[in-house]
């Protein structure tokens, strides 16, 4: 059993598990932090961004000034943003049989894998995962395609040149493999390869293993996966949450008794308590709006935004902010808000029961109804007519490199009355803000990450007790910035095995058993003999039939009857002929009694010698030697077949046959 690690990002994993002749890709995350090295894509012509000076080397060489621009002390690539793909060289991805997706954030690299690697397998995911994943991809493609950029920079990627660049460009990894965003066509093609599954549904893979998605409590339709054969069980835990938010709660019990537990997607901000962060979010929002400022919340179109809207629904009235408009701007805003209301079976119990009232499970329906929340596909069109300040705007992309958020950053950045509140933990907020500096607007960082923290992990591991834990290397040591926080790492016995990007990890786990079925008529014919109290044995003579990784013992064919001249063979004749089977022997030969028996049968002049392994019985007269050892008996005589057979039969009398 091996794990191939294709992504170094602990919360955007992409691993391949080889298990019992199957090759299973676990998640397909896309690391988008690479886009932070690029200039933002402004929706509206920005004089500031279009007039940035080109960057030149220390010696004044300016050959890169078209590709690299200097902006507030940092150097950015002036090109269409590119993403860092999972490793494609470590393993031949065309051999991947299936891809299991755990949540919609972890499938963003899917089109790169399914469309460009010769992948011919199936992708499994739950319905909300696919639908919301589609929305995320659609938004991404839309954000990038609607600001066409003629230039695609590649010179800077040259290894010799990259070395000369300032940080962080100099330290960017695998730049040569960075790719531009996929197209909608690729997205559609990739999504068409997905097969929908439900929680606890058992899916057979080639008869070799069975995979089952379990609720992971993190997002709508998010799942952990159980991959099991008859005797082995691997659990894949990715992006799970024990907090009570909108999704169905996490199913922990089914993870018990795993041989291997692969643990990824823990919280990225282990020191931040989501409740406290929501409080921080609300307070800062209220303070800003009260002073006449606007609040910008860069966010994904699904996920935490539902919880934030629910929280604001309760909060704005109490804070006297009912008249402040909330805007949600995304090409998929409408679909996202509506989808969330129809996936009732994937929601937590509270929300599920609302559906039967019937009421919409999320209160944002009421916010929309009362005109407190308005949503628009983009800043163009209706939005510009309705736009009223002060207001709260939720829009993407959290990287601040593309999407409508770029426009609001340019628009509101100059006033200290306004505030940008970062709630998504995926991007460093300081890096995201770098191209907008100097910035007058207030910046608040309240990352809300509901995924498991280390305390919860240690409780979970105590509860489910896997034999081995496998996790990204980042989880086996405290975060570099807080090296003294020994509580911010996985602490388990035996210590967790860690992996890093482009590493292959052989799991210390040997498969020892295989299940074989016996046909009923064959089982009927067996006659077990008790050889020890409680243990019975029976010999089985059968044909092992193996197909689709399933093994079956069938009755042996009858000895071939001489067919009466007919040449045509029956189907059963395909089974190879078997020789008449000799019985198996067991037991031991008591030497003294054996000698007495020999004497009774007329042998004389018998001599017994003890050897290291047993005894030798010498029949001096017959010039014959019988070697009796623990596991074998040999009769050595000189070309006297009659004598050998006589002696053999005497030996056999002492043994049991079956």
């Amino acid at each position: 059993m091996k794990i191939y690690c294709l992504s170094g990002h602990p919360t955007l994993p992409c691993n391949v598990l080889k298990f019992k002749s199957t090759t299973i890709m676990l998640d397909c995350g896309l690391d988008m932090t690479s886009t932070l090295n690029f200039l933002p894509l402004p929706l509206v012509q920005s004089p500031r961004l279009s007039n940035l000076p080109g960057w030149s080397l220390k010696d004044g060489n300016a050959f890169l000034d078209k590709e690299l621009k200097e902006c507030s002390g940092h150097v950015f690539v002036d090109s269409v943003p590119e993403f860092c793909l999972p490793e494609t060289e470590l393993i031949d991805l065309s051999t991947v049989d299936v891809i299991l997706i755990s949540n919609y954030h972890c499938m963003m690299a899917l089109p790169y894998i399914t469309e460009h690697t010769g992948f011919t397998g199936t992708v499994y995911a739950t319905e909300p995962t696919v639908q919301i994943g589609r929305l995320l991809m659609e938004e991404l493609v839309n954000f990038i395609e609607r600001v066409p950029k003629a230039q695609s920079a590649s010179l800077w990627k040259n290894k010799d040149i990259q070395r000369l660049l300032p940080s962080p460009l100099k330290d960017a990894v695998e730049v040569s493999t960075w790719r531009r965003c996929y197209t909608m066509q690729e997205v559609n093609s990739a999504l068409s390869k997905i097969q929908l599954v439900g929680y606890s549904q058992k899916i057979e893979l080639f008869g070799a293993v069975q995979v089952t998605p379990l609720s992971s409590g993190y997002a709508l339709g998010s799942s952990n996966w159980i991959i099991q054969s008859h005797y082995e069980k691997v659990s894949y835990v990715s992006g799970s949450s024990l907090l009570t938010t909108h999704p169905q709660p996490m199913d922990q019990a089914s993870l018990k008794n795993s041989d291997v537990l692969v643990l990824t997607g823990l919280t990225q901000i282990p020191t931040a308590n989501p409740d406290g962060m929501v409080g921080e979010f609300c307070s800062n929002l209220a303070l800003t709006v009260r002073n006449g400022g606007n609040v910008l919340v860069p966010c994904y179109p699904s996920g935490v935004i539902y919880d934030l809207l629910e929280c604001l629904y309760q909060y704005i009235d109490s804070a006297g902010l009912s008249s402040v408009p909330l805007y949600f701007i995304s090409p998929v805003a409408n679909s996202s808000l509506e989808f969330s209301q129809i996936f009732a079976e994937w929601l937590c119990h509270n929300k599920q029961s609302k559906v039967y009232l019937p009421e919409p499970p999320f209160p944002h329906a009421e916010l929309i109804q009362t005109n407190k929340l308005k949503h628009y596909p983009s800043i163009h069109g209706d939005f510009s007519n309705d736009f009223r300040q002060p207001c709260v705007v939720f829009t993407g992309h959290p990287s601040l490199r593309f999407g409508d958020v770029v426009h609001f950053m340019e628009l509101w950045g100059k006033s200290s009355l306004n505030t940008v509140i970062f709630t998504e933990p995926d991007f460093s907020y300081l890096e995201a803000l770098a191209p907008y500096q100097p910035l007058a607007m207030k910046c608040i960082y309240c990352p809300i990450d509901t995924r498991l923290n280390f305390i919860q992990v240690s409780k979970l591991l105590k509860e489910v007790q896997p034999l081995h834990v496998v996790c990204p290397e980042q989880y086996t040591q405290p975060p570099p910035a807080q090296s003294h926080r020994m509580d911010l790492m996985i602490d388990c016995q035996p210590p967790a095995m860690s992996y890093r990007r482009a590493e292959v990890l052989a799991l210390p786990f040997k498969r020892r058993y295989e299940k074989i079925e016996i046909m009923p008529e064959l089982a009927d014919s067996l006659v077990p003999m008790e050889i020890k109290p409680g243990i019975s044995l029976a010999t089985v003579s059968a044909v092992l039939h193996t197909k689709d990784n399933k093994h079956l013992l069938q009755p042996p064919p009858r000895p071939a009857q001489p067919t009466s001249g007919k040449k045509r063979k029956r189907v059963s004749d395909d089974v190879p002929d078997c020789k008449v089977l000799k019985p198996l022997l067991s037991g031991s030969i008591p030497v003294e009694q054996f000698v007495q028996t020999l004497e009774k049968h007329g042998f004389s002049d018998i001599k017994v010698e003890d050897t290291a392994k047993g005894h030798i019985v010498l029949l001096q007269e017959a010039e014959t030697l019988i070697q009796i050892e623990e596991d074998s008996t040999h009769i050595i005589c000189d070309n006297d077949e009659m004598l050998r057979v006589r002696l053999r039969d005497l030996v056999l009398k002492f043994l049991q046959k079956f």
Partner: protein
Amino acid sequence: MDLECSRLLPALCAVLVDPRQPVADDTCLEKLLDWFKTVTEGESSLLLLQEHPCLVELLSHVLKLQDLSPGVLSFSLRVAGIFAAQENCFQYLQVGSLLFSQPGGAPGLRLLSAPPFFLSSPAPCPGAVDTIFSLQGDSSLFVASAASQLLVHILALSMRGGAKEQPCLQGDDWPTCAQKIMGHVEESLCSTVTPKVTQALNILTTTFGRCQSPWTEALWVRLSASVACLLERDPIPAAHSLVDLLLCVARSPVFGSSNGSLWEMVAQALSCLGPAHVGPLALGILKLEHCPQALRTQAFQVLLQPLACVLKATVQAPGPLGLLDGMADDAMMVDALLASKSSCAGLLCRTLAHLEELQPLPQRPSPWPQAPLLGAAVTVLRLCDGSATPVSSVGGHLCATLAGCVRVQRAALDFLGMLSQGTSPQELVTQALAVLLECLKSPGSSPTVLKKAFQATLRWLLSSPKTSSCSDLGPHIPQFLRELFLVLQKRLCSPCWEVRDSALEFLTQLSRHWGGEADFRCALLASEVPELAWQLLQDPESYVRASAVTATGQLSSWGLHDPTSPQHAVARQSLLRELLRILSADSEGFPRRAVMQVFTEWLRDGHADVTRDTEQFVATVLQVASRDLDWEVRVQGLELALVFLGQTLGPPHTHCPYAVALPEAAPARPLTEALRALCHVGLFDFAFRALFDCDRPVAQKSCDLLLFLRDKIASYNSLREASPNTDSVEAAPWRWRAHEQTQPQEDQEPEAVLAMLRSLDLEGLQSTLAESSDHVEKSPQSLLQDMLATGGFLQGDEADCY
């Protein structure tokens, strides 16, 4: 015993011994027992028994019945105990031999144990003491505890009766009974069964706690060796009880301060008890008034150990900040700290609580290590918020264990707040304020932690020394306040109402003390805090609204209004209007009560809005308050009326004979005019109505107010003679009672009011009101009748069956 009860008693006794009668519930029996106690205290028990033969019958009858309920049996035994406590009754009853033969008799035992003649009589109850020994292990804790107490009684009595002269230390001449008990205790102390040891220790603790006769010294001399042996066992059995015993002995005045062997044993206990038990022992020792200095030093070191460990594990150079420098770490203590999260948190919380208890005591150790303790408190808080840097593996472990531990955080904040009372180096004060600010800022702080942090911050701010320089407050305070108000702003917007509430309470307290300080005013007015407090008057949570009322009222008293408001005066005026609106319209009681308190305070302090037209203000408020459904609001209305009375007629007379008599201030205006003003604001209407309020506190308060008024008026001679038509006056007050007076009377005449006041028996009313509302139901007659009534019903049922 009054006649009515004497008449009812025989019937009740008959009901109690009748197994067919339903057993009255336990509460009734308890009440009855209490009554018997009161009665026997007041009159001769023997006479009572002789006059009520039914009681003797009850007691003798009860012991013969087989199927009596345990409740009634236990009751009867306890009644017997009450009577038998007097020698003549004891002999009259002759119950000595009866009691111990009953199972479940333990509750009565304690009461029976008092008479010394019980023990001095020759073999009153053979095997009684043995029975009590076995009852010590009874499954019922009450029985076990009663048995243990009884043994102590018996021991004390036998010693008191037996050894009048100086007791012999060997105990050869001790009474048999005492010898027997001592033998039992000694045997139990050597037992390997922990509960037995605990029982023995508890007997000793109670003995030394109750009896301070010289013989207890002899007792200790005899037993101390056995007690000392316990300290050599591993693990030490019944450590908790052992600590109690040691402290009890140490506190006993019999031993004085010279008992070397006792102190040696305590010192040994300090060094060998586990961290969980050694803390209370150390604290107890430090609280003793007389105790060897060396032992105090040792106890204090023990108490400081956990914090010393924490400091050592996190401070780079153990320089001036170290606690217990140069001492080796106690391995047991370190183990306890590292064993588990709960043991670490428990140990630290206990230590912090012990030190907090010790700090204000006069006998606290001196010199008090204020600076290291402050350093330790700051460090513990830093460990909890994850910002401490450990310098050893122990530190790393502590860091991981304490990160996010709310329990320790709360204890450390309390402790830190307490440390504000001492003098600390400026650098550490800065650190303490920084850690408090950090705690207030942190989004992860739970509401309870925030509340504690606010309390601690308040204590530190208020105790900060004032300087004589241009700045009113300390040099660092203005900057701190600026940052604090930024945090407060955010906390006032918190979605969690508990947080908003604690932030408002903090604001109220701070402005109450610092409202006049220029630095404070400057920082506050530069922030949005006043405006936010104003907005919270509309909070959906009633507690928050109440706190917002108090806070804005306080701010307004100091003229701390939102300066950005275009019309300052208008804003102030509108606060009065807003508070009146809350008083008349808020659906919850808390905000309305808060408004009344603010108004009372405003009236007392002469708030500008009130003094503009005081009479109008009082009239409006009283009118609204009188209609309020919440009695506390009405009481507060009367309080406000009292303040107004004081202002109109002069302050109340001091009745203290030793008070310096101030020259009687001349009343502000003539009485008639003053009374007319009172009539005008509707004060009498409100007060008379309140006099007959269905809520007793309101009526009481009104009674007090009217009495005060009557006394005041009495000092004016001029009006005494006035006597208007008596009939109409007499009738008037009762009209309020009959709720005829739904509308306030317009412009009552002062004379009529005065006459009404004189006609009322206010003293009588006051004493009636002083009795609790259930005094009738609580009377013994009522109790006996109730119990009989329960039985009576049964008889009725029986009749129906035929």
